[in-house]
């Protein structure tokens, strides 16, 4: 991304540790859900955040939205530190920083009508007359591809894809600059996914929105992102522009992840062996490089020392001992 674009969000050394609830012997044992994450997002850009279950990507999203408080680290919005703000101080920031959630069934209050769900942010912040709230809500509805005559229906009367559109309309209500999308299409059918992905991309072009797009589906992330960060056990192992990360991945985990994705082309069946082992638990992560227990290129150094995130090619940062940083 060109450096001329403003940095909207900057995250530095973010950590979130949860106390583990595993019974009597759990004193002091922590789940290191997010353990040192840093990245920034520019205006009009989509940063994709991928990883498998337990990697901490959803927790990162919640930390940015201040739905959870970080154990350590900094979050900056337009240059201003926000991780320690009180609830009241966060309110003006929330206008610009909105969210779309994964579950189209549970992210809408089943007892509220669609119009009220979309209007809630408007009512929270602006003292508008009832007529104007109605107009703006109807406009939002239409912009996400729903009909205004459906405004008074309840969530159960809509399909999954339509509910997700309502969630997007709600996120757009305050004209935010950045939307954190936490697995927004994972629960949808393939053909509906396409509709929602297209919608998000159209809105980005139209409104100059930025997205933090959290997902586990690499193909979707590739399609919608400008830059991509790969997480493993609470840390970012690689972050690079889309073109680079999908054609020249440098971290062994990224390579394994890309190899594992089934390709819808029967002439290109997998010849290589799948990555072995299971995803380790974030309660007791491996020493040194967290990936060393499954890495096909593991060396002694990897077991002892944690590799720092270093730039190995323009814009591409990798945390691996085996890659040489650009001088």
């Amino acid at each position, binding site marked *: 991304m060109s450096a001329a674009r403003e940095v909207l969000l900057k995250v530095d050394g973010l950590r979130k540790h949860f106390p583990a609830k595993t019974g009597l012997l759990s004193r002091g044992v922590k789940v290191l859900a997010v353990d040192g994450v840093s990245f920034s997002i520019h205006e009009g850009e989509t940063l994709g955040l991928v990883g498998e279950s337990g990697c901490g990507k959803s927790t990162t999203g919640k930390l940015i939205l201040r739905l959870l408080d970080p154990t350590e680290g900094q979050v900056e919005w337009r240059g201003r530190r926000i991780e320690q703000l009180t609830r009241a101080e966060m309110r003006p920031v929330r206008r610009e920083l909105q969210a779309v959630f994964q579950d189209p069934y549970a992210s809408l209050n089943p*007892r509220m009508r669609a119009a009220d769900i979309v209007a809630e942010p408007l009512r*929270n912040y602006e003292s508008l007359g009832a007529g104007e709230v109605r107009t703006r809500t109807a406009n939002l509805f239409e912009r996400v591809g729903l009909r205004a005559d459906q405004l008074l229906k309840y969530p159960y009367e809509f399909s999954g894809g339509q509910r997700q559109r309502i969630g997007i309309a709600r996120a757009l209500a305050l004209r935010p600059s950045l939307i954190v999308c936490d697995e927004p299409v994972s629960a949808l059918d393939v053909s509906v996914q396409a509709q929602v992905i297209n919608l998000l991309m159209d809105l980005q072009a139209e409104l100059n929105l930025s997205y933090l797009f959290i997902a586990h589906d690499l193909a979707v992330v590739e399609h919608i992102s400008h830059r991509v960060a790969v997480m493993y056990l609470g840390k970012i192992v690689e972050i690079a522009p889309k073109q680079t990360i999908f054609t020249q991945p440098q971290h062994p985990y990224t390579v394994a992840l890309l190899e594992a994705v089934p390709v819808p082309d029967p002439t290109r069946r997998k010849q290589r062996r799948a990555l072995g082992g299971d995803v380790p638990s974030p309660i007791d992560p491996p020493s040194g490089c967290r990936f060393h227990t499954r890495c096909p290129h593991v060396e002694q150094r990897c077991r002892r020392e944690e590799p720092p995130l270093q730039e190995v090619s323009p814009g591409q940062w990798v945390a691996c001992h085996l890659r040489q940083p650009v001088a």
Partner: protein
Amino acid sequence: MSPTWQRFRDAFRRHPTAIAGAVVLVAMVLIALFAPWLATSDPQALSPIQRLKQPSNGHWFGTDMLGRDVYSRVIFGSRISLTVGAAVAALSITLGLVIGLVTGFVRWVDATVMRVMDGLMSIPSVLLAIALMALTKASVGNVIVAITLAEVPRVVRLVRSLVLSLREQPYVEAAIATGTRLPLILLRHILPNTLAPLLVQGTYICASAMITEAILSFIGAGTPPNVPSWGNIMAEARSMFQLASYLIFFPGAFLSVTVLAVNMLGDGMRDALDPRLARRM
């Protein structure tokens, strides 16, 4: 139509018993309201020469040991029982809701309040009500308060668990993310989703309170003796059971039928909220 009302409507269609219960309950309420017109005589009117007469044309349910018309006493008794049932249900739900909402959200209050509630719940509710009544004089108002206090802890526990699970719902997170303040979150997102289960619980509390009132009156710890509650009527007839079983039968029958009706209604409503049903939709 709101999803809750739709579910209630569908559940009632499936459960004719719930409708039967509702009908009987409405009939009882009408009886209570129109008691002065339905009674054939003054429930307090003594007539010693008419003592212990079997049910007959003049006295449909017979007379008691003081010559009072049992039918009229039973009709007026419905007022007491229904009032106690409804009042206890309403008060305990309201009080339990307020306490439960607060404990669900404020951690330090939660710890102390729940320990108190646990303590109260460890005493069987009837005994607790008796103990509370022993501290004051007998009156309908005091009976209501005593039974309410005994029922509140269970409501608090229900509300608290509802609040704890609702708090984690994504739509609550979404509300926080869109800048909704805490009081509005409670009012708009948490509260409406607790009302339906509380309504169901309320019907059960109503039934339980009516029986508790009867028990209290039966052992003399409830409504004052001159007030004709169903429990009192049965209490006074304790020693006469062999001679005049009708004295216990009629108020007992009315009590049973009312409690049964309330329970059937409550079952139908609970069925409406059963998550298994929700899946079938």
